[in-house]
């Protein structure tokens, strides 16, 4: 009960700060003002947040969550990548209209580029938008809707610049005119520039990069911890997609993140990947991603020793040459690995933060 109340109070404080930011310049936003808006004393405020910067960081995290949710919904409901890009522009402008405080925060801090404690979170909010646009461009290029000559990274930076410029002039002009109609203008202008034959894309189309089948010795188990990337404010979406592209078609990827990356999960589900999310430690999530051709992950982590060892050896014995199996085992199987090597079975293992382990085995000869 007390925990629920604490959670509600935190949410109230975040909403109050966001509402105040709409009209109060960032440098004048104080904890005293926020406390007054919530209707609590300043010491009561500090029971939930240690500083003003911590409140601002929570505001950005809350906004990131909302954006994630909206982007996930967009991915689920809109199949065309170009339509998705249009939809994302719409979401960003709509969000700005509802929460002008966030726009003020993003633009002020982006212009400052100072080293605030919440700078990385803010950078990630923007880089997440950029990653989504880049992935839409890449998908549209694959479907030949947009020119393959355009660099998705450049295209995504351009649309972010267009959106931020529009928001800046909207703020300066007193937020009187509605923003939503601008969404269509912006996205049409941007998409027109990326179409084959446009000035930006040039006349001649570069041959579409063929999706080469992965190397036979490509990794069967790849692990990426994106927490350091996020700490520095970079969105890891592109890195994760690159990891998956480099994976063997029987492979399994493990991504460790400090939150549930909902848009990524929707994007991967759409590509036929099976994604399983596990909370492996406090505020740390592990995504286990298996391609549509890859064998499913077999969970042996509820079995007492030596049953996992026995099951893995039995499964490995029936593997065809080149065949792969993935297992989740109760711990790093130190004693099993030499047995596998003895039988000519290759393996990779990853120890999860909760002590369990993922083991991928494949027959070499």
């Amino acid at each position: 009960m007390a925990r629920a109340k604490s959670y509600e109070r935190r949410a109230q404080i975040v909403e109050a700060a966001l509402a105040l930011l709409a009209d109060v310049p960032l440098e004048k936003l104080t904890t005293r003002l926020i406390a007054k808006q919530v209707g609590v004393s300043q010491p009561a405020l500090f029971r939930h947040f240690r500083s003003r910067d911590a409140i601002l960081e929570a505001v950005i995290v809350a906004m990131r969550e909302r954006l994630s949710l909206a982007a996930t919904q967009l991915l689920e409901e809109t199949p065309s990548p170009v339509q998705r890009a249009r939809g994302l522009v719409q979401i960003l402008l709509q969000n700005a209209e509802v929460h002008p405080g966030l726009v003020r925060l993003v633009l002020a801090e982006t212009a400052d580029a100072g080293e605030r404690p919440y700078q990385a979170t803010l950078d990630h909010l923007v880089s997440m938008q950029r990653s989504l646009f880049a992935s839409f461009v890449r998908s549209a290029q694959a479907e030949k809707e947009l020119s393959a000559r355009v660099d998705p990274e450049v295209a995504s930076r351009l649309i972010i610049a267009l959106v931020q410029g529009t928001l800046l002039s909207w703020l300066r002009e007193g937020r009187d005119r509605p923003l939503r109609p601008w969404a269509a203008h912006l996205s049409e202008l941007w998409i027109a520039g990326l179409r084959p034959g446009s000035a930006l894309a040039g006349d001649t189309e570069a041959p579409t990069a063929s999706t080469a089948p992965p190397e036979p010795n490509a990794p069967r188990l790849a692990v990426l911890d994106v927490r350091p990337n996020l700490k520095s404010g970079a969105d890891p979406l592109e890195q994760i997609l690159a990891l998956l592209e480099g994976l063997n078609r029987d492979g399994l990827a493990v991504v460790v993140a400090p939150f549930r990356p909902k848009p990524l999960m929707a994007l991967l589900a759409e590509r036929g990947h099976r994604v399983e999310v596990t909370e492996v430690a406090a505020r740390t999530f592990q995504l286990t991603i298996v391609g549509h051709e890859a064998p499913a992950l077999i969970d042996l982590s509820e079995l007492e020793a030596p049953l996992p060892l026995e099951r893995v050896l039995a499964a490995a014995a029936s593997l065809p040459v080149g065949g792969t199996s993935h297992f989740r085992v109760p711990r790093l199987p130190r004693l099993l690995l030499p047995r596998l090597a003895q039988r000519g079975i290759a393996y990779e293992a990853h120890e999860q933060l909760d002590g369990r382990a993922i083991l991928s085995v494949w027959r070499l000869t």
Partner: protein
Amino acid sequence: MSLRAMRGLSLDQAPPLSVVLPFFVAGALSAAAAGGLLAADGSAALTMPLAPTTLGATHLITIGLLMLVMMGALYPMIPVVLGVPVPWIRLSHGVFVMVGAGVGLLVAGLTNSRADLVAAAMVGLGLGVACFLPPAAWAAFRSPAKTPTAWGIRFALLSLAAVVLLGLLMARGHAGSVFPGDRWLFVRVHVALGVLGWIGSLIVAVSWQVVPMFYLAKEVPGWQRYSVLGALVLGVGLPPLGLLLAPWLGSALTEAAVTYGASPALFALFVAHPWVTLKSIRDRRRKRAHPSVLFFRCGLATAPLVGGAAILASISDEPRWDLLYGFLALVGWAAMIVHGMLSRIVPFLVWFHRFSPLAGLQPIPSMNALLPARWTRVGLGLHAGAVGLGAVGILTGHDFAMRGAGALLAGTGLSLAAMIVHVALQRPASPAANLDLGS
């Protein structure tokens, strides 16, 4: 744990069954012999802590059962847990012979008050430990592992070195030379190093490995493991420090350091470790567990009683509290947990060495099929009965209870030995049994 470190482990590093099993069988037979002594002498065996039979039975449990089993278990444990094999593994056969003979001579010497036998035992035990400790310590300290289990094993080995040195010094006194100081202070330090340092650290460290592995129990959080270990190091270190500094501290301070210095270790072993381990067993992922988990539960549940008896022993002059403390600590807590560990480790080792090479290639029995659960239950019943009746016998001085406890303890040791032999005799039916790694 990095994959690189894991890959360094090969099957060649794991010692064959022929290295390990003799230690376990001899350990079980020592428990049976201790039971036999108690059954033969009845209440006379447990009236004075330094009575000949009491000393004999105590050393049959501490050295005969616990030390032999722990030495045998460390040979495979060090490579598996710490990733470094124990070198000169053939020395283990010499260790077994020398320590085994040393225990026999020591018990014979102590029970018959024969200084020559005690002196011979000193040579055997000293040589046995000298052949065991350097290779084991070399592997343990060379390993890069920095887990609480690794530190626990290292500290246990240091404690073993200290307790043996002190034991040899004390045995010199028993063998006719002048005792090196106040006998009671030396006994307390010896107990602190042996029971708390060597036995306690190893039980704690190994339980952190074995309990999650065999029962899918929740890992005890790192800070709790390090706190237990820290308190253990402090409580085991203070009594010998007090004894070493005796000429400067004066008698009152020395006695306080020796008597109360062990308190942090007592708290760690008999309150904190049982609490966190029982909690982790309760919260295990797989609710249906092998009956051997009951050994852990009984042993850990006895631990607070051991702590209570230790407190009573330190504030009262009545010898029965010292006896109760020793009996509960050795038979109720340590031996119970060790018995439980053997009920899982022996079938595991035999299954791993002999049957796992055939897994997936031909039908093989499961590990549980090697040792029927009823054997484990019989062992538990005998052991728990011995502890209960023995405690009653010490508290009441009732001769029949003591003899009954002795008989039950003898039965416990024999059933354990039979269990080990029964499991050890099982081999795959096919010629593929040749895959057995040296057993």
